[in-house]
């Protein structure tokens, strides 16, 4: 064979299948890491909490006493603290975020919309520990001096606003959580509103509706599902927030009726107690707190993603 023929042979050789197969397998393996990571999370947390599961069973979830010294472990203070602080935080954040999103998609002058959104996303980029530091040093003393006594004066007859006012308390945690989840709810609500076709707005304008009526009838009416999804995503974030909450919630494992009392959440309990845990049952109980936190956040996130669905979440995620 002369060299010309060899060259031609090479030129005509079909692309190698082996390279493709190997590359595809490699990429497949990496994509499957997602499922491996999920399985690992579930398995390791379950393994770690076995001792506690055997000892307490389902009672762990409803028992109110958490006393590591006496070997009593009940998760209820943590579960309640997580739910109350997150839901309160959501209640504060949701109306603000939706209104801000309305302003940024429907009402604001055009030149202002994307810089304002950039600012809100900047808030999402601030690390949790820094929000916690700010909350602890600046926000909590201010809340304790001003708004909290006013709240107590107005609603003190309700047990939730009664009792001694602590700076670091479950309400402070709710406020810091609200600040942290505002960006994600605003940005998803904005996506939801932007997905509404302009023809709907134009139709409403043509009927003589005012700007607000257009927003209410043409935009808000069909967006409830998307907003609900955004709220669930925000809730998911709030449930797992660790550092900022740990720094302003005051750390107490006693269930109190007042929002001005210190409390704890699943995540903050893990952050403060994991390092101190020495005996096996204590460590195991903390693992089970982690397992509960994982399950709660998975359920919330699955619901949220099914609701938001086609609209799609923004790419930014907030640090915790």
């Amino acid at each position, binding site marked *: 064979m002369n060299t010309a023929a060899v060259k031609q042979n090479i030129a005509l050789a079909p*692309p*190698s299948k082996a*390279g493709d197969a190997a*590359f*595809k397998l490699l*990429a*497949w393996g*990496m*994509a*499957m890491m*997602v*499922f491996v*990571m*999920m399985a*690992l999370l579930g398995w*390791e*947390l379950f*393994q770690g909490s076995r001792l506690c599961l055997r000892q307490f069973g389902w009672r762990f979830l409803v028992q109110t006493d958490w006393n590591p010294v006496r070997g009593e472990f009940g998760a209820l203070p943590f579960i309640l603290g997580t739910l109350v602080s997150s839901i309160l935080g959501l209640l504060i954040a949701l*109306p*603000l*975020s939706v*209104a*801000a999103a*309305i302003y940024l998609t429907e009402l604001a002058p055009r030149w202002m919309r994307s810089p*304002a959104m950039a600012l*809100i*996303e*900047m*808030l999402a*980029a*601030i690390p949790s*520990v*820094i929000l*916690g530091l*700010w909350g602890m*040093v600046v926000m909590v003393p201010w809340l304790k001096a001003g708004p909290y006594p006013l709240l107590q004066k107005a609603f003190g007859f309700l047990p939730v606003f009664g009792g001694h006012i602590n700076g670091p308390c479950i309400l402070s945690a709710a406020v810091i959580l609200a600040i942290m989840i505002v960006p994600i709810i605003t*940005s998803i609500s904005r996506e939801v509103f932007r997905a509404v076709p302009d023809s709907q707005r134009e139709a409403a304008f043509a009927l003589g509706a*005012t700007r*607000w009526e257009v927003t209410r009838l043409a935009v808000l009416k069909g967006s409830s599902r998307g907003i609900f999804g955004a709220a669930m995503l925000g809730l*998911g974030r709030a449930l*797992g927030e*660790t550092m900022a909450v740990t720094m302003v919630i005051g750390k107490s494992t006693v269930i109190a009726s007042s929002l001005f009392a210190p409390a704890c959440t699943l*995540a903050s309990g*893990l*952050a403060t107690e*994991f390092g101190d845990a020495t005996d096996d049952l204590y460590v195991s109980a*903390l693992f089970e707190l*982690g397992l509960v936190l*994982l399950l709660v956040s*998975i359920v*919330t*996130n*699955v619901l949220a*993603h099914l609701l938001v669905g086609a609209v799609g*979440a923004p*790419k930014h*995620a*907030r*640090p*915790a």
Partner: protein
Amino acid sequence: MNPPLDKRRKAISAAASALCLLCALMVILPLALILFHLARLGAGAVDWNFLTRLPNDGGMANAIVGSFVLVALAVLLGVPVGVLGGIYLSEFGTPRLTWAVRFGADILNGTPSIVWGILVYALVVVPMKGASAYAGGLALGLIMIPLVLRTTEGMLAMVPDSYREAALALGIPKWKSVLHIVLKTAGKGVVTGILLACARVAGETAPLLFTASGNQYWSHSLSEPIASLPRQIYTYSNAPYNTLHRQAWAGALVLVLFVLAFSAGVRVLTRGSNSPLAK
């Protein structure tokens, strides 16, 4: 037409608009306050000493370097796995599998970061009998994987199919066309996604608490505990001394500048393109 009713409707519209504006301002207010206090309390405490000395000399040099080391370790794990996984979804995956992986990655992105810390504690810290930079890097890397995977997939999906078809028509093997043509075309977007993921994990504290732990001195080996900025800020903020609080604010200012520089860099990188990251 009914003039009084019209007037009322217009008034309601104006009031609602004003209320929405007020809410938008209230949403931005915390950011302004945080940046203000960071500048006021942090700027005075950041000096050459702070950036170059160890904690016992009033510095945070080891924590700054430690944060870079941890993020670098996280990149070593998170980038190859995330990018290749994203390539699989966009170039090879069947619709159903793609949906499942995407959904799984979204769920992992929503998993509280402290849970990752506990996983790595059980997987690495317990068998190695101690906290280490490896463990911290692994925890951050695991958080990075789903982030990078999702952005990579989104970026690759924007490369027009005609590029892939042109490559195939030239007889180029698919793996080469993916790496040299598709990935290269989407390169800027993919890098952007990686930078955002770095900015995100650089600020993480919770997953480092029991994995990288902390260190008041230089770490001489990756199997030793290592200091990190967020962790150091947390430790100092719990301390009862004003000098340490000042240091915490200084550390916070440095950390925020890093994180915002990353995000700002991303904005510059993606300006003018129609990338979904450049919103």
